[in-house]
């Protein structure tokens, strides 16, 4: 018997193409930054300060997107900044996801006392203002890449725990869970083999969203000078530096801002797109 449904191929869709394309481009830029960056991102030249981008009057050849007030190349700094942004997005996003989703899954599926303990923790955690909490954490841990990642994981796991708990609860009430028990599957086995595949699309969507959020958090921390040390370029650092000279040299602020915006948008759109493709019912 031919399976007619199996033959329908759904187009990947503009959303997935555009967001995936931008992120791929960014990943390539991050990996090849030393090869493709036109200038050293740290090289200062005070004679070439605040040069406008290439299409404007008085642009300096070789500096495509202009220079900042210390004469550093904006394009090169954006390319190098992508490295840090992507590392934070991938590592912090994934760790947050694993920690939060595991706790959410356990509390939503097992209910009872594990749920009471984890849920109380989530409630307490969410009562802290996140930015203040992050600043406090970094102040204790000291600035640096590792501190940023730890701060993001510690603050944002609740986002996953909440959503996955609710999802696991509703899946746990389905008859296929009872039927796994009838078949003699252990509770733990049921959680991994039956529940997890059903909450996976939500986990994927949240994970990509969290990657976008991680990029933003890093930018926020740069803004208050608590990110990585100033000699490694970050988008957040560039935005906060550009802010002071926005009337004289808007490009120093605007280009990293656009890059950040597109990146965060792409992450969230990628998640939505992947969620749809992951779902055999929608596929």
């Amino acid at each position, binding site marked *: *018997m031919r399976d007619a449904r199996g033959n329908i191929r759904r187009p990947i869709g503009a959303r997935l193409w555009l967001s995936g394309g931008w992120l791929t481009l960014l990943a390539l830029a991050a990996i090849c930054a030393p090869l493709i960056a036109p200038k050293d991102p740290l090289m200062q030249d005070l004679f070439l300060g605040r040069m406008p981008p290439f299409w404007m009057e008085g642009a300096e050849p070789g500096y495509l997107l202009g220079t900042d007030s210390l004469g550093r190349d904006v394009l090169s700094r954006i390319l190098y900044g992508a490295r840090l942004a992507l590392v934070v997005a991938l590592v912090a996003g994934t760790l947050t996801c694993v920690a939060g989703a595991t706790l959410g899954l356990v509390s939503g599926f097992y209910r009872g006392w594990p749920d009471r303990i984890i849920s109380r923790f989530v409630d307490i955690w969410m009562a802290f203002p996140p930015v203040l909490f992050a600043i406090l954490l970094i102040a204790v841990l000291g600035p640096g890449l590792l501190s940023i990642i730890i701060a993001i994981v510690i603050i944002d796991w609740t986002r996953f725990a909440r959503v996955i708990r609710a999802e696991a609860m509703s899946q746990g009430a389905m008859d*296929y869970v*009872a039927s796994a028990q*009838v*078949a*003699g*599957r252990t509770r733990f086995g049921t959680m991994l083999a039956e529940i997890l*595949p059903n909450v996976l699309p939500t986990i994927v969507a949240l994970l990509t969203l969290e990657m976008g959020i991680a990029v933003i958090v890093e930018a926020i921390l740069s803004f208050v000078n608590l990110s990585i040390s100033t000699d490694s370029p970050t988008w957040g650092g560039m935005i906060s530096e550009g802010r002071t000279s926005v009337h004289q040299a808007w490009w120093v602020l605007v280009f990293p801002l656009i890059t950040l915006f597109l990146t965060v948008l792409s992450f969230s759109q990628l998640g939505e797109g992947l969620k749809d493709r992951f779902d055999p019912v929608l596929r």
Partner: protein
Amino acid sequence: MIYEIRDLHLSLPDMTRKPLLGATPRIEILKGLSFDVPKGAVLGIVGGSGSGKSTLGRAMLRLLEPTGGQIKFKGIDITHMNENQLRGMRQQFQMIFQDPMSSLNPRRRVGGIIAGPLRLHGVENLPAKVNEALDMVGLPTTFARRYPHELSGGQRQRVGIARAIALRPDFILADEIVSGLDVSSQAQVLNLLADLVRELGLSLAFISHDLSVIRRLCSRVLILHKGEIVEEGETTELFESPKAAYTKELLAAIPLPDPYQKWDV
């Protein structure tokens, strides 16, 4: 005897009446049921909604733990066994669920759904067993590669039956398995179940609110009302001369093809 059930009580916490502080009051759902399921019997369990028929079924399969009384399965007391003790026995009593959309994991293919329980009980040669089970319920073996949402309601319920019989249990509980199907699929699924029960020599408990379905399938009937057995007997006898008032009410509610014609069984 497959099942010997004596004075079965079951109560569940009533969350709607949970006070702010203190213990949740319990609501008594099964109030002392006693009956047997002989080997090879097809027992119908009938009752209106809220009569406790599904709870009784879940207690028999030990998805719920009784609060009193005793359940013996093939002479073994399973009333208060824990999940680890039950696991080795679960192969022998299986269940077909009411809603196949909810009881089949939407992210597994039909083949995986049927193979899952087999794998847990260490059955070998899985693909052949899956094909055999599909064959027995009258589905083409190519369906093993499909997802549940790609099947019709009747086909899904056949998958539910295939999963239950693949383990070759001694007893199957069917909980309202045709109430979500249209009339022609109902007839097909019921005929299939009747054939399988005969072929495999299974014992079956068939929960339903639909007396005409029970009448076709079951040799014995148990009428449940508000957690108590109001009447029990041979199907033909019970349909001909019902004794309890509630049974008479139920029988009077069956729509007749010709309202002027009386039931003749």
